[in-house]
């Protein structure tokens, strides 16, 4: 009996010990996680936490002294005596606030999420490996290693990150490591390259060759061109050209090759989402009250916590720059110094082409190219899977690039081998662009800095204290013949290959235009007179025209007017479509509820403000109408793209009788009028259903839309939900449900001292247990900006300084 009791008690103790140290599914190891000595409770901080940090810190690896001054939003202002120390401390300080995010994003880029979360992420990981993210990062790092300046930044940044990782005690590990039960690994320079590929994937992986090839076959040429035109004449490009381009373009031969003519049952990998986009503009002194140029930028990305951006000031001999950084990469990415300011928006361009490959046999050792069998190379991807056996995926590399899609990946009905040619696979030195931009003093310096910039292609707005304003659509753009890469290309002949790249000086750009401003919002870079073929699947048609309309009509501009303009909620899409939509609906046929919605819309001023109801009805209407219009292209086994909003509205208005508008499932022949009415009734129903689900609350736009800023690992309590804000897609204030302005910046280029304002939806600390985790959210929601503390010396006093630290060896 004694033995049995003992054994029982011992068994319970052993089982508890084991269970409390083990992760079960989503549940973290409870003993490790909950114990208050080094579990999650240690991650909770209060406002005093920052000030209680030591003021003098010994730091091995530094050459001189570095001062780090934190202001009351926890923005570090780093003053170093040399550049090596500057990048070392940038790495250290960033890791201190954002280590988990830095590592998670680069793990994602490398296709290593399965290591952390298990087999649910295997398809995602395979996708990123098949896209050649690591292959591209490795090629980039080999190139950067040959440039001493790039190597200096990368190695010092990495050393700083590692100094922080090595100083971490278990109790101070970011809470996500405790929750997901793993540890940070050493930071290597290749991770910085991976982060840049992560951005390239977010911004420049949009390819529609599979969908276009299918659509062309389904619809025929005439309808395809109607639905997916390269350009609408109503478009206002970034740089209007007046028909004059002063350079001699390179010759491009259009080879006699056929586009693929078959249906592809291939599920495309996720690509750049609609909603990812941005606004930037710069106004010349001639249009401002002070006579100083003003530059504005607000990149729209997926709204996430920890925030995509981390704000800081970097000062060393030869540089004093303020702005936002990408955690994991040295330098300021968007910002200003004492002479210039710059900001970016995504330059839409098709930078991925797919080539159909013909293998000799199932061994996939040889493929057909120019009449010969060429050897492939194989890269065996080892995907470690938590709690499961390692997944091995063989990715075949050809002359074109990795064969991203084959019979083992994203196709079950047929066998198509598609190789991917992507600009992000090429070695590049974007790091140097930001190094030189941080130190730029003039337009010439900015142009020089951009010569190092390849991918992801961006519209770089620029302004300087000397009065210059400029816009360069910079990237490495392949020379393409008409429609090259819009459809799947023949991979058996090098005649299908890119014939070179557009020279930097022939990229679309403008300096000091007559109209007194430059602007971009992801629209076409130029009109059709630009001598090179330009194609993308996601050009914007609304924000840009609204921005230009406002800037055209403004004079005596102040920074405050620019901040307000970044929050402009005017819905140009509604203004151009709603009157037509309303005219299609027979008001007399409506019931009382429908009638009141109709009246609400009729009186609406087209502003998507947070606290009005009309935008909810309009957006609900649109959300029903769009799929009704394109039902032919939806829910099919074969993937198709849907035309964009601008094209859809234009077709509804100009070709209301087009057969496209007929619902094939009904015996009657419908036109635009019938489906617009049907969508209206369904839209009113969705709003009513929303009301029923929400205690009969008024469907105010902010509540109906319900913007949420989600944690990167989708942990709901670490997310901020229902951020009450107006705007939407296609509106200058581009805040939709999951996307929006990820950093709003306004800079006045005053010779007597450059002034900046900024805000982002989050906070400096990546720790959900810190008061600085999402402390800027409400300011951002309310459309306000903070005045940025641009320090000129470390001894400068300011009332909002929290902590001054000195680091020395």
């Amino acid at each position: 009996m004694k033995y049995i009791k003992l054994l029982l008690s011992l068994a319970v103790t052993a089982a508890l010990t084991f269970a409390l140290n083990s992760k079960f599914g989503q549940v973290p190891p409870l003993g490790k996680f909950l114990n208050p000595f080094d579990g999650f409770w240690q991650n909770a901080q209060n406002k005093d936490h920052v000030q209680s940090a030591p003021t003098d810190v010994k730091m091995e690896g530094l050459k001189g002294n570095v001062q780090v001054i934190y202001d009351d939003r926890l923005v570090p202002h780093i003053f170093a005596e040399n550049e090596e120390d500057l990048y070392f401390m940038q790495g250290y300080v960033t890791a201190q606030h954002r280590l988990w995010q830095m590592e998670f994003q680069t793990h994602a880029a490398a296709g290593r999420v399965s290591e952390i979360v298990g087999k649910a992420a295997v398809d995602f990981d395979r996708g990123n490996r098949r896209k050649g993210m690591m292959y591209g990062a490795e090629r980039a790092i080999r190139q950067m290693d040959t440039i001493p300046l790039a190597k200096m930044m990368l190695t010092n940044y990495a050393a700083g990150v590692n100094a922080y990782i090595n100083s971490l005690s278990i109790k101070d590990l970011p809470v996500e490591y405790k929750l997901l039960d793993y540890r940070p690994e050493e930071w290597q320079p290749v991770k910085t390259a991976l982060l840049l590929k992560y951005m390239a994937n977010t911004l420049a992986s949009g390819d529609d060759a599979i969908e276009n090839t299918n659509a062309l076959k389904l619809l025929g040429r005439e309808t395809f061109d109607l639905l997916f035109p390269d350009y609408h004449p109503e478009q206002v490009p970034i740089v209007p050209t007046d028909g004059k381009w002063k350079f001699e373009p390179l010759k491009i031969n259009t080879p006699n090759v056929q586009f693929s003519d078959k249906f592809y049952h291939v599920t495309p990998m996720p690509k750049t989402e609609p909603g990812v986009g941005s606004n930037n503009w710069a106004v010349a002194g001639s249009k401002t009250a002070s006579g100083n140029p003003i530059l504005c930028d607000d990149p729209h990305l997926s709204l996430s916590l920890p925030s995509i951006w981390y704000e800081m000031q970097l000062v060393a001999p030869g540089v004093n720059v303020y702005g936002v950084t990408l955690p994991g990469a040295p330098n300021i990415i968007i910002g200003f110094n004492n002479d210039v300011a710059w900001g970016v928006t995504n330059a839409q361009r098709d930078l991925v082409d797919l080539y159909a490959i013909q293998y000799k046999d199932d061994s996939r050792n040889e493929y057909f190219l120019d009449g010969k069998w060429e050897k492939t190379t194989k890269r065996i991807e080892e995907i470690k899977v938590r709690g499961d056996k390692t997944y091995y995926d063989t990715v075949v590399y050809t002359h074109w690039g990795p064969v991203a899609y084959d019979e083992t990946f994203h196709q079950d009905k047929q066998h198509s081998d598609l190789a991917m040619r992507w600009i992000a696979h090429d070695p590049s030195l974007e790091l140097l662009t930001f190094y030189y931009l941080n130190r730029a003093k003039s337009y010439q310096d900015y142009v020089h800095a951009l010569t190092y910039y390849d991918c992801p292609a961006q519209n770089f707005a620029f302004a300087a204290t000397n009065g210059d304003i400029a816009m360069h659509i910079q990237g490495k753009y392949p020379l393409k013949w008409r429609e090259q890469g819009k459809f799947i290309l023949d991979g058996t002949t090098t005649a299908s290959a890119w014939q070179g790249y557009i020279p930097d000086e022939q990229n679309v750009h403008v300096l000091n235009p007559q109209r007194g401003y430059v602007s971009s919002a992801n629209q076409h870079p130029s009109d059709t007179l630009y001598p090179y073929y330009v194609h993308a699947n996601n050009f914007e048609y609304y924000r840009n025209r609204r921005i230009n309309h406002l800037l055209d009509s403004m004079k005596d501009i102040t920074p405050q007017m620019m901040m307000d303009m970044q929050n402009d909620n005017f819905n140009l899409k509604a203004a151009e479509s709603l009157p037509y939509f309303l005219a299609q609906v027979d008001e007399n046929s409506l019931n009382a509820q429908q009638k009141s919605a109709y009246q609400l819309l009729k009186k609406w001023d087209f502003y998507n403000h947070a606290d009005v109801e009309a935008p909810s009805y309009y957006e609900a209407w649109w959300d029903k109408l769009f799929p009704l219009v394109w039902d032919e292209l939806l829910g099919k086994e074969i993937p198709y793209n849907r035309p964009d909003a601008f094209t859809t509205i234009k077709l509804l208005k100009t070709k209301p009788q087009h057969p496209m508008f007929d619902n094939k499932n009904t015996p009657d022949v419908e036109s635009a009028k019938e489906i617009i009415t049907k969508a209206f009734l369904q839209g009113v129903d969705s709003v009513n259903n929303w009301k029923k689900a929400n205690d009969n609350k008024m469907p105010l736009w902010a509540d109906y839309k319900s913007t949420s800023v989600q944690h990167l690992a989708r942990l709901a309590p670490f997310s901020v939900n229902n951020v009450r804000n107006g705007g939407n897609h296609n509106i200058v204030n581009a805040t939709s449900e999951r996307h929006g302005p990820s950093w709003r910046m306004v800079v006045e280029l005053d010779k007597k001292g450059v002034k900046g304002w900024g805000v982002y939806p989050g906070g400096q600390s990546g720790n959900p247990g810190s008061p600085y985790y999402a402390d800027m959210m409400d300011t951002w929601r309310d459309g306000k900006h903070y005045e940025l503390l641009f320090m000129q010396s470390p001894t400068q006093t300011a009332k909002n300084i929290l902590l001054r630290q000195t680091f020395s060896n």
Partner: protein
Amino acid sequence: MFLIQIITLSVVCAVFQILLPGNAVYVVAAVSLVFGLIFGQKPSQAFTMGLLGVGLLWGGYAAWLDQMTDSILGAKVATLFSLPNAPVLSLVTGLIGGLLSGFAALTGALLRKLMK
């Protein structure tokens, strides 16, 4: 006497957890087992010692940390575990530590009885 034993267990567990970070579960199990072995208590008393000693240590320390930080993280993690609030989560924290220690101390006490 019993109170002193409880406090001693609490203090020794705390010291070893600080000295051996990342090993909280092993530390609590080992220390409690040894205390159950050397104190010569009745098995039920040993169990209660562990339950209270480490239960109050974990629960109390967690509640104090939470209090100092206005439940900034406790509330979020409580939601993650589908618990109503941070105080309940600190109670659960205490219960988990207490049960582990209680069973380990019980094992120690039973072992002692067997060796006699």
